[in-house]
């Protein structure tokens, strides 16, 4: 059954990708891209990558679709039909690169081969030892937050930097309370009622994903995205100006920085207590307890940063849209 799902989903991915190449309507492209990412996420579940699937589900169908639609609202909807130089050169480059890559795959071990080199080094130790060394069932979480905690600190910093970048590119400083992004969907009663019921559910689910991440799929990255998505839903249904009154952009900027700092401070705390940077063993009275505390705090930091960055990015886009509307009038 794994292979059946695998082949069908691969086929669907190919169909969507080719359709995206041919399509001119950018809106249709965004829709197809969201289908593409849904299909790839079910593909990840099929290949046992539950954490990756959770992330892709939250990011691909939610945040990136919303951001792309926001961009389309501010630019234009159609790709200009314009004869360019014959497509032969790009096609040739692509064909050559593809042929080289396929030649490269010939040396790779077969799909799902348990004897592949990738499964022989480092990983057996993670799988065998993480249960006793870290003491949490989700191996992905223990690698993410503990064994490779330094990597994750870097990634969190990258997310933070991207958030800052969007803020510098699109954010307008100064008063923006009087702006609004126009008629919200507030007039639609069914949507309003359902939205009101769903937002708290999503926030609850975000907390569940955050704190259950050590036992099942989940963790700071996913939880942050879901929390941001809840506020985005609120903002879409009730209007951006209302959402801003609940959580102000200034507070978001502070949260962005606080999350990364929390992560780094946990590392420094390890150093002060006599271990290495990001060594959680020394945080508690016994190593596994220290690991628990460390992973909990680190994931919390990641969650706060990711949620704040995603929401701040969305608010920046919405603010730009509102400014555009104001200038257009």
């Amino acid at each position, binding site marked *: *059954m794994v292979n*059946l*799902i695998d082949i*069908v*989903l691969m*086929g*669907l991915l190919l*169909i*969507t990708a080719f*359709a995206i190449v041919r399509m001119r*309507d950018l*809106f*249709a492209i965004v*829709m*197809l891209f*969201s*289908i593409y990412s*849904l*299909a790839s*996420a*079910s593909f990840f*579940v*099929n290949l046992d990558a*539950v954490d990756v*699937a*959770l992330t892709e*589900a*939250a990011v691909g*169908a*939610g945040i990136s*679709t*919303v951001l792309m*639609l*926001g961009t389309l*609202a501010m630019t234009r*909807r159609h790709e200009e039909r314009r004869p360019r130089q014959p497509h032969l050169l790009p096609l040739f480059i692509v064909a050559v690169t593809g042929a080289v890559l396929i030649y490269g795959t010939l040396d790779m071990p077969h799909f799902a081969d348990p004897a592949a080199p990738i499964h022989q080094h480092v990983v057996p130790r993670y799988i065998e030892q993480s249960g006793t060394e870290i003491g949490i069932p989700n191996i992905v979480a223990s690698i993410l937050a503990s064994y490779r905690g330094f990597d994750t600190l870097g990634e969190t910093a990258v997310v933070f930097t991207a958030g800052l970048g969007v803020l510098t590119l699109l954010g307008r400083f100064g008063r923006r309370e009087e702006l609004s992004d*126009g*008629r919200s*969907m507030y007039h639609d009663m069914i*949507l309003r009622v359902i*939205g009101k019921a*769903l937002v708290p*559910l*999503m926030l609850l*689910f975000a907390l569940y*994903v955050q704190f*259950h991440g050590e*036992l*099942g*799929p*989940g963790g700071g990255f*996913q939880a942050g995205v*879901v929390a941001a*998505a809840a506020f*985005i*839903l609120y903002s*879409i*249904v009730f209007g951006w100006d209302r959402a801003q009154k609940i959580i102000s952009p200034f507070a978001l900027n502070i949260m962005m920085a606080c999350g990364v700092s929390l992560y780094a401070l946990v590392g420094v705390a390890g150093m002060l207590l006599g271990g290495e940077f990001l060594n959680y063993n020394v945080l508690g009275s016994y190593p596994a307890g220290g690991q628990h505390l460390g992973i909990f705090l680190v994931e919390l930091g990641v969650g706060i940063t990711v949620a704040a960055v995603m929401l701040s990015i969305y608010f920046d886009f919405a603010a730009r*849209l509102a400014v555009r509307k104001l200038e*257009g009038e």
Partner: protein
Amino acid sequence: MYIAATAAILIVMTLAVIRAVMGPTLYDRILAGNMFGTKTVLLIAIMSAVAGRADMVDIALMYALINFIGTIAVLRYFEYWSEEEEKAES
């Protein structure tokens, strides 16, 4: 029995993708995307039932929540565009 349900859902997904690629209107594409989303939820639920693991159902739950946002966001921007067009006409 699971395999029959899986096959049925995969067929539905394929038809939905074809509809999304063919169009012809944007609403058809959104409808197909929405249907693809609900069927993805079901597919993942079945996969986790086959694996017998309750924690994989979380992913399906996540989809059920997020897919809704996608659809609503699309409709929101549709309204935005129709406002723009109204303004352009008046």
